[in-house]
């Protein structure tokens, strides 16, 4: 089965080309139908690939084809299947199928409906091709392609100035990270002569990665950190996280698929795929852990106070991605990947449920919502499943994966990171139930909007139900009850020395993290469900701290002042130098020449005698110079 894995990305590509041929006026039913069916087929093949990889421990492939000759090197493209990317194929194709189905309802009536599906299919293809890449070059190619799709989809409603700005911002901020990845890949290629993962990692393990100017150990650290910079951009880690909340300007299914479940997890996947390299560099691993931990906490703190339902969930995504990075950084490889999987399910669910709410109310402001439970029971219940999973309440999916990460952080001696994680867990439970209570309970704050609210059709509710089931039971892929099935599966790729199946469950920690989660939910309930605490009063008494969270730690403003303003200033200076100094000198020279020319024109008297006299004089000088230089005759 593995040798047919190339079909997985190919099917969405076929859908993309088909829709491109159909054009911009194709009927919605055919457009959505073809996309869903082909992506679902890709999911089925992924599932078969996943199973057959599990059955045969021997890795097959990679299957590569020649792409370009550079000097004595051959660049190749192709595909490979590992345990890690087989899991990714399943997750990506499954969530994609559900989102494509959901979009049929959500985007109904949009005049560019077929274009939306084109972009989505292109994205699904690129994401699957990224995951299945057998080398860093191809990974980078599709890494940029998913970025392009994100750009196109964030800016899908191109006529909205905010969407146009957000699209540009997302591309440019992630590109800062991409340049790190680009450089890292090039350095690894120069040192090992190959882009292939296995060749690079083997050379690194054998201490053979060195260039004239840098030793093996330093190069491993440098390259790992450069690769991580790419992951920081794509996975919206601090300090490059600022693009993701703005990316919520895109249609909500896009937020669910690209900016929650799949593309933003590509950074985590990248670090996981390059884990053998990171493991050789304690400095790089520790960078990953700390950036992850800081991001998890920072984003959770910001999410506490946001008013826009999608932005809360977006900061939640940033925070959860931080958990995954932290897991990888402290050595808990399998837990990071496990959390990636559970998060994909429950975060896609939360976004789609939010989409269902936005679709019904036509607002994203939490304070214009309220009391929706009565009108949208299914959305409310599925959202609740997702919220419980995110809050890490037993036995929902997020509980198992997040708890593993916290335990691993403590286990590996990262006490501070453990505390960060625990505080973030409290905030997580609080902010997501704040959303839940503000949206679904209490009285409608905007009766006019509430009036018309209703549940979407089956294309919108079915994906919610499927994802809710996964968010509820998805954690059981890796529990003591099934002998840590997922870990054993993933460890067949054998990143040696990673913390994993050997760690015993620490029941005390489990109880503590559940209690922290329940405390967060409880506080949210006291503030927004059965109001015992006035949120406004609390906000006022917290004063600056509240503002810090609400204003997102002023990071956008700081970046604007430092980076953007500096860049624009340099551009303006360069432009000034160009117009007035460089070109000014040119004009000055031209003027001088012109003036001389004006003067010299009076020598053009038209009298042969005068010309001859000048010519004779010139010959005289030349002869004199020649004789002098030849032999010193004069």
């Amino acid at each position, binding site marked *: 089965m593995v040798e047919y894995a190339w079909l997985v990305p190919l099917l969405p590509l076929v859908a993309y080309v088909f829709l491109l041929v159909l054009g911009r006026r194709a009927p919605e039913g055919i457009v959505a139908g073809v996309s869903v069916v082909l992506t679902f087929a890709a999911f089925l093949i992924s599932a078969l690939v996943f199973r057959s990889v599990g059955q045969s421990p021997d890795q097959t492939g990679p299957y590569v084809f020649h792409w370009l000759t*550079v000097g004595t090197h051959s660049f190749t493209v192709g595909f490979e299947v590992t345990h890690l990317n087989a899991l990714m194929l399943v997750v990506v194709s499954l969530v994609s199928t559900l989102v494509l189905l959901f979009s049929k309802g959500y985007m109904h009536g949009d005049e560019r409906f077929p274009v939306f599906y084109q972009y989505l299919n292109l994205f699904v293809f690129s994401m699957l091709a990224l995951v299945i890449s057998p080398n860093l070059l191809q990974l980078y190619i599709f890494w940029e392609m998913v970025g392009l799709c994100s750009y196109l989809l964030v800016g899908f409603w191109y006529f909205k100035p905010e969407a146009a700005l957000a699209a540009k911002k997302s591309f*440019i901020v992630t590109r800062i990270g991409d340049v790190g990845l680009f450089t890292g890949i090039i350095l690894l290629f*120069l040192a090992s002569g190959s882009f292939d993962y296995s060749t690079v990692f083997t050379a690194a393990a054998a201490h053979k990665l060195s*260039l004239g100017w840098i030793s093996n150990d330093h190069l491993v650290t440098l390259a790992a950190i450069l690769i991580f910079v790419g992951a920081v951009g794509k996975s919206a880690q601090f300090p490059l996280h600022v693009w993701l909340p703005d990316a919520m300007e895109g249609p909500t299914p896009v937020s669910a698929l690209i900016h929650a479940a799949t593309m933003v997890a590509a950074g985590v996947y990248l670090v996981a795929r390059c884990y053998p390299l990171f493991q050789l560099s304690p400095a790089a691993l520790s960078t990953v852990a700390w950036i992850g931990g800081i991001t998890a906490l920072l984003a959770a703190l910001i999410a506490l106070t946001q008013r826009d339902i999608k932005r809360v969930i977006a900061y939640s995504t940033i925070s959860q991605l931080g958990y995954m990075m932290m897991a990888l950084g402290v050595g808990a490889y399998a837990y990071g990947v496990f959390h990636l999987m559970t998060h994909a399910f429950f975060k896609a669910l939360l976004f789609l449920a939010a989409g269902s709410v936005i679709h019904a109310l036509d607002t994203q402001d939490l304070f214009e919502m309220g009391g929706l439970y009565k009108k949208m029971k299914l959305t409310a219940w599925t959202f609740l499943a997702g919220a419980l999973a995110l809050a890490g309440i037993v036995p929902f999916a997020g509980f198992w994966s997040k708890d593993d990460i916290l335990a691993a952080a403590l286990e590996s001696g990262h006490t501070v990171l453990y505390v960060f994680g625990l505080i973030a867990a409290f905030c997580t439970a609080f902010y997501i139930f704040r959303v839940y209570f503000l949206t679904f309970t209490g009285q409608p704050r905007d009766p006019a909007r509430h009036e018309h609210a209703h549940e979407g059709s089956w294309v919108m509710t079915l994906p919610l139900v499927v994802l809710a089931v996964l968010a509820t039971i998805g954690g059981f892929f890796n529990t003591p009850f099934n002998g840590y099935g997922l870990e054993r599966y993933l460890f067949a790729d054998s990143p040696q020395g990673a913390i994993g199946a050997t760690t015993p469950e620490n029941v005390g920690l489990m109880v503590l993290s559940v209690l922290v989660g329940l405390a967060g939910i409880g506080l949210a309930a006291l503030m927004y469900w059965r109001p015992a605490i006035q949120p406004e009063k609390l906000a006022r008494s917290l004063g600056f701290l509240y503002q810090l969270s609400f204003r997102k730690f002023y990071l956008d403003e700081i970046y604007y002042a430092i980076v953007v303003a500096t860049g624009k200033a340099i551009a303006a200076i360069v*432009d000034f130098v160009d117009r007035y100094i460089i070109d000014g000198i040119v004009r000055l020279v031209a003027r001088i020449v012109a003036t001389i020319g004006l003067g010299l024109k009076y020598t053009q008297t038209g009298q042969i005698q005068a010309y001859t006299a000048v010519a004779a004089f010139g010959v005289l000088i030349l002869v004199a110079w020649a004789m002098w230089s030849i032999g010193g005759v004069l």
Partner: protein
Amino acid sequence: MGLVFWIVLAPLIAAVLILVVPGLRAGAHRALGLLGSAAALVLALAAWGRFQYATSAYQEVSRLHWFTLPALWQQSDLSIGLSFGVDGLSLPLVLLAAFISLLAGVAAPRTLQRTRLYYFWMELATAGILGVFTAMDLFTFLLALELSLFAAFFLIHLFGEAGSRKAAFKFLLYRGLASVLFLAALVGLAYGAAGGFGTTQPDTQGIINGAGALTFDIPTLTDTLHKASEAFFTPHARSVLFLILLLGVLVEEAFVPFHTWLPTTHEFSDTTTNMLIGGVLTKTGAYALLRFGVGLLPGEVRHWGVLIAVLGVINILYGAFAAWAQKDWRRLIAFGSISHMGLVLLGVAALNAAGLQGAMFMMVSSGLLTALLFFLTGAIKERTQTALIPSLGGLSRPMPMLSGFLLVAALGSLGLPLTSGFVSEIQAFIGGFGTYPAISFVGVIGIILSAVYLLYAMEKTTFGPARQSYTGLADATPREYVPTVVLTALVLLIGVYPSVIGDLFGLSVQALLRIGG
């Protein structure tokens, strides 16, 4: 006569016919012009089909002897004539030039006045550029360069916007200066290869006596000089000649600080002239650097490598920052092209396979993308009457196809994978990091900046609320689809399957790298 000879001759014949046949109407001028360019393209494609990949030598060679200067130097005659041929370095550029010339001809608007002059100069410029890329001797090279120079001068002067006269003279003076520098450097090299500068190493006297004869033939000069230029020049003479050549390249190629002619030229020229100048005419300098710099004086390229690499990075960043500040699309594209070509310098300075091949890819890629950008922004300007970025906006609604293709062109320019831009960038940077890591680390900032200035311009042009004044404007016409689709297809073809031209470069790049025997 070899195939390549006819590639150059075809547009020349067309030009002559357009000029001398009396009583032709505008349609006939256009037809003749397109025919000349189309013939050149077909022949170039044929040369590609017959290309021998197993050799780095010139192929399809034609030599026309004109006259001999007897006993010019140490009883050696100098043969003057025209000779043409292609190798792996020149054929991709010949194809590029033929494509762009034909597409520019197609792109010329129906409302064009003075078609006789237009297509005459257009075909002459095409012949000149094709001659530059196919020249096998120095005389042919310099002659063709002059031909392209004054033909382009007239195109700018006669068909540009108000103010184009100044721009045309600026163009003429700068490129004329470059030609003079090339002349000095190249004649100096030929003179030196005949033993004219003596030597510092007595034991190489044998080599010199063997060479002896004065020749302008490029393959002979390459054979003589490439591996042993030390034997023919004192270090001082070598450096002086190389620096004259390099200065010529910098002026010819519009490198900072000798670049101000390029934005001015593009700002005042018409769309099709811009396609021709931006697409191919600004690749001649880089070609000369590869052909004569790396080809004849590789030791000097290595010796001055740091200087060239630093100049390259300065151009990458300067071009990008300047582009960011531009309000006019055409000036933005011009500075973007300067930034691209900076990467060519970095790749050449690296003097390894990836760097040189990346430089070649970048020349082709930048040519295609610059032409495409000029065409699309020109088409937009025809409708909106402005190329000023702040005056545009929301164009995706009235003209979704033009906007879509403009986005593809911008993405290609910023080096998005699966476009030719990426293939060029990654190879050039692999080369750059291989030889000059520190300088290249600074250079990669350009990758971020290219996204900044291009997406900024896109945001202001096609995104945003639709403007009242632009609502009724029509999208691309069938005639406009031709250059748009062909150029886009080529950009994507090279991006998806780079071997299509990469295999052409391979052996020629290898041959350039064999230094010191």
